[in-house]
């Protein structure tokens, strides 16, 4: 290779990468606008008065910002507020229970799939994915009938059970990937160092799989928190509704209370955002780095 081509090649390479980097930035900017603009509009509308929200051309910036909608929603004395807080609590309960159960079931399941060989391992592993081949609506009526037979219609148990079956396959797959990446020698070392198999799992493997468990938990929580169609079908009693179903009551009055709807939507997104802000560092922390030499 001649000297000229050696010195030119990297420079040409860098220029090309720069072009891609700028294209990437523009793309990211568009994506941010695409995702953030509706959120911004939601927030702006939620602090308008009912009249201001309906004006055309729209008020881009609220002329008389008010927190009245939030006050109404968060006031347990107000009938709207009492309902909203109950729905909020119901959603929180269902989602939290789903998350806890999903982690409790998925962790040992994923570990078993990752570490042990047993008859039917491969078949079972792909069987858990089978559910994901079908859209949720297909299971709506069969599951409703099943829940009626089990006497679970109009209970939160029906939702927790359903969300669990839908969420587990991906949770198990996700976690299995994490366990696959944890070298088996770490457990072997722990067992030689005096730990039982279970202690090796608990003391060595579990702490390393925390990012995976958190990712799984967030996934389960958000799926349950946002779910609409099953909640709408299984629950009909007002005091049991979850937020996605409950919020639509803002539509059902004579006029739609847009600021109220937007305020409710905003409050509904708060737990998810908080969850992400608190736990995001676990996503990026590569804990296994330095564990073994590759």
């Amino acid at each position, binding site marked *: 290779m001649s000297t000229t081509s050696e010195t030119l090649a990297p420079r040409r390479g860098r220029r090309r990468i720069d072009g891609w980097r700028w294209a990437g930035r523009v793309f990211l900017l568009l994506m941010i606008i695409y995702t953030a603009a509706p959120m911004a509009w939601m927030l702006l509308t939620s602090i308008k008065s009912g009249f201001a929200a309906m004006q055309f051309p729209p008020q881009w910036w609220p002329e008389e910002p008010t927190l009245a909608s939030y006050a109404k929603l968060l006031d347990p004395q107000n009938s709207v507020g009492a309902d909203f807080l109950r729905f909020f609590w119901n959603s929180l309960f269902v989602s939290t229970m789903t998350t806890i159960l999903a982690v409790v079931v998925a962790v040992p399941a994923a570990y078993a799939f990752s570490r042990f060989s047993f008859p039917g391992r491969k078949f079972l592993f792909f069987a858990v994915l089978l559910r994901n081949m079908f859209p949720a609506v297909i299971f709506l009526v069969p599951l409703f009938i099943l829940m009626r037979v089990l006497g679970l219609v109009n209970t939160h148990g029906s939702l927790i059970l359903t969300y669990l079956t839908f969420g587990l396959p991906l949770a198990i797959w996700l976690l299995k990937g994490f366990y696959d990446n944890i*070298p088996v*020698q*770490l457990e*072997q*070392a*722990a*067992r*030689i*160092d*005096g*730990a*039982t*198999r279970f*202690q090796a799992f608990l003391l*060595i493997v579990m*702490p*390393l799989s925390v990012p995976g468990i958190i990712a799984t938990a967030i996934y389960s929580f958000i799926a349950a928190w946002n779910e609409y169609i099953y909640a709408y079908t299984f629950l009909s009693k007002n005091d049991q509704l979850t937020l996605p179903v409950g919020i639509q009551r803002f539509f059902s009055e004579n006029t739609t209370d847009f600021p109220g709807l937007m305020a409710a939507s905003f409050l509904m997104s708060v737990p998810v955002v908080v969850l992400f802000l608190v736990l995001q560092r676990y996503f990026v922390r590569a*804990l*296994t*780095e*330095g*564990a*073994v*030499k*590759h």
Partner: protein
Amino acid sequence: MAHVVLKDLVKTYGSFHAVNHVSLTVNDGEFVALVGPSGCGKTTTLNLVAGLIPVTSGDIMIGDRIVNDLDPKDRDIAMVFQNYALYPQKSVYKNLAFPLQMRKLTKEEIDRKVRDAARVLDMTHLLERKPRELSGGQQQRVALGRALVRDPAVFLMDEPLSNLDAKLRVQMRSEIKRFHQDLNATIIYVTHDQLEAVTMADRMAVMNGGFLQQYDAPAEVFANPVNMFVASFVGSPAMSLVPLEASGSGDTAALTSAEGWTLPLSAENARKVARATSRKIVLGARHSTIRLHKSAEPGAIPAKVYTVEPTGDITFVQAFLSGSIVNISVPASVHVSPDEMIWLEFDQARIHLFDGETEMALKAA
């Protein structure tokens, strides 16, 4: 410390015999290397001793106990892994403390032992670091420290040096040897590198295809390999092996090549050849036992130079002899060039003769 006995040890996976009726004894305080090419069953054997996989049949004794059904934690062993297997979320201190915590020692005892081990391995300044903040050599040393901190009956080491770069490997090799001498520890050391086995071990167990081929002191394995596999595996460059045909009988036998030349054998070597199962004999010779002549000499046989590899003080010559490649070492002052004809003289007292059918070394009665 304790001795280790493997008695007719077998491990099968389905119909595949990973470890095939291996029996050997590791004496108290002995450094034994299990050596062989990949897939020879050496790591499986080590894992059987560690208790990480169950034995199919046979017995493993550590000290005077049969440990076949004991958990790894109850075998009183320590192990160093090829990838070190340091707990990534724990500091070096906690890595070293973990085996002691598992044995429910008091905080003061743990602290004393951890600091002792750190001092021995010269890594007191690293105690608060995480494994990922250490270099390969330092990680290796922590792995060694975690094994030594507990004072186990046996140390098991699974290719502990193969992830290090060449220079560090040589340095750690002498450190492990030193470690063995100072502690008088019983060590079973798995490696695919025969040089590590030869330089470090008191005895080496050469394995191939799940079978134990030869178990002896490195010098003995080097001098008297029991079969062609061991002969070609131990030593660098490998022993040259040339398949030939035996002719004559009694004390006047010779080896004949299809190329037309004949190598007369000494009386002792002739008696060895007489014991072979057929006329097919494989001649083996190490590079240093062959003399190179640049012109025809009585008793020397002709060969053609293939490559010449100068290494500084000695030069390795590879030559074609009867269709096989033969390694010869010569002083750097000897100059030969590729395709040149040379004449090779074999030292009758130091050649090896193998049965061409069974591949076993031929011995004089």
